[in-house]
């Protein structure tokens, strides 16, 4: 396997240290979970990693289009973790507190549901890296009409359809007019995908100006070159239609009349919110504020947390950093705990506050 085709999650060592007799469970096999798994497996930990989806990689595999991140590179990295570093992958397994809540995108993929309590008892420590999978709502009328998607609802099935679940198909937008709301990287990804799926027209509505767009002017130029229309300073007011979507009504500054954009499909790409299992029990608010003795440790002593589930949607790099730091913190804690010297630990830094600007990359 050539090194240029593999994402080396266990980059800290050329090979794993001999088993150290400790086991760690990681919930979520996205960027932060895989980075934490790679770090700990390199140090000789036995790592069990759980994910509700049929493939590892999280949004690198199921959210961001394959044109941007080569799927083979991620899967080669996963295979390396499995074969060379002995990480045990438990896919299609959702970790829950109580009754399973089927309310996030991708839940229908999981076959097995296990409790967090079980994991905590079976392992020396647990890291939760479940990300932010719930889309933020616009809170305007008509949002529940058929044909209105969130960016994840739109992007997820495109990637998931290829991963062997018969019921999942890419959004049927062929020949339709599609409107995308938002101008971040997800919005750009949705617009590009809609064009590739054969939409008749794609309009991107953004409430601020072109210059303010988080995806950047260059990306907007690319989208326009590909055939999309960028409508700046268009604030969505309501979705129109009976039963299914017929159009989007927008307000434009200095204009009395509202603008009507005919559309049979729409995607809102205005960010996601974290979906931590049992946020309250774990005291995540305190972890966010850095109000804990151990970096990334939750209210339950041997449960750590990392990635977007803690910070809100950020970027792959930030999630990876968080995963690595949580793994290091966890390893330090277990090392000192084994010698009953926890009191000696010096917390080096606080967990960064969530940034107001969000993007999926």
């Amino acid at each position, binding site marked *: 396997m050539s*090194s240029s085709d593999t994402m080396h*999650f266990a*980059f800290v060592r050329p090979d794993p240290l001999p088993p150290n007799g400790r086991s760690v469970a990681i919930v979520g096999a996205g960027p932060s979970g895989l980075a934490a798994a790679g770090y700990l497996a390199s140090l000789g930990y036995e790592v069990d990693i759980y994910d509700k989806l049929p493939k590892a990689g999280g949004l690198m595999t199921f959210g961001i289009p394959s044109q941007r*991140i080569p799927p083979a590179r991620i899967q080669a990295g996963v295979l390396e973790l499995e074969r060379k570093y002995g990480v045990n992958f438990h896919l299609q397994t959702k970790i829950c507190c109580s009754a399973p809540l089927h309310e996030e995108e991708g839940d229908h993929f999981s076959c097995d549901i296990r409790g967090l309590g079980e994991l905590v008892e079976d392992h020396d420590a647990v890291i939760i890296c479940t990300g932010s999978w719930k889309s933020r709502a616009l809170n305007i009328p008509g949002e529940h009409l058929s044909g209105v998607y969130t960016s994840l609802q739109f992007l997820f099935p495109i990637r998931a359809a290829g991963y062997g679940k018969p019921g999942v198909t890419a959004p049927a937008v062929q020949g339709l007019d599609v409107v995308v709301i938002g101008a971040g990287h997800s919005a750009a990804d949705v617009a590009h995908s809609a064009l590739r799926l054969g939409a008749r027209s794609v309009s991107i509505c953004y409430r601020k100006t072109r210059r303010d767009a988080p995806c*950047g002017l260059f990306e907007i130029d690319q989208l326009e070159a590909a055939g999309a229309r960028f409508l700046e300073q268009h604030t969505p007011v309501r979705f129109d239609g009976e039963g299914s979507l017929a159009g989007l009504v927008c307000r434009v500054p200095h204009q009395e009349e509202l603008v009507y954009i005919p559309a049979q499909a729409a995607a809102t790409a205005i960010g996601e919110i974290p979906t931590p299992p049992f946020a309250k029990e774990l005291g995540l608010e305190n972890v966010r504020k850095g109000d804990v003795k151990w970096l990334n440790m939750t209210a339950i002593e041997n449960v750590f947390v990392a990635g977007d589930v803690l910070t809100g949607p950020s970027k792959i790099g930030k999630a990876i950093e968080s995963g690595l730091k949580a793994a290091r913190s966890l390893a330090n804690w277990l090392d000192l705990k084994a010698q009953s010297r926890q009191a000696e630990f010096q917390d080096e830094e606080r967990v960064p506050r969530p940034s107001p600007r969000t993007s999926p990359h």
Partner: protein
Amino acid sequence: MSESPAGKVLYVDYSTCIGCETCETVCGFLHDAPRIHMTRTRDGVLVPLYCRHCEKAHCIRACHRGALARDRDGAVVLQPMLCRGCETRECTQSCPYAAMVLTNKGVAVRKCDMCSERRAIGLGPACAAMCPTGAIRFLDRCELACAETEAAKDAEKRVLAHLRPSANK
């Protein structure tokens, strides 16, 4: 030192980079402070600025103390013992790629050494190992020409136009 260096080089294909910051954060995790830095061009493209370990490195010539030298793999590395205490920091001005970073304590600047300690035990730079898209590569200098696709050259031009607006007009 007149013969052209063979050895290794770090290369970022700006056309396939998605600006995810993995390189910067992984570098920072290993080296305490990152030596590869994300920048956002005026066109809103996020890309990392990085040391090219140039064949004819301006920084090596600019440093009067000889604190910048080429190691056995062709990497331009900083010798902290010689750099320490420098006030002119001319190396940072001389770098066309904004890859030398000022620090506010101890050694005056920091720069990429292509993960010198990792190379010593047979590993490559961590940024290249962890890049999700494969945009960062650790190459033999002779492979560089093949790696530079037309799209990559165009993207590079846009980044350099951002770094040096006057040079391109």
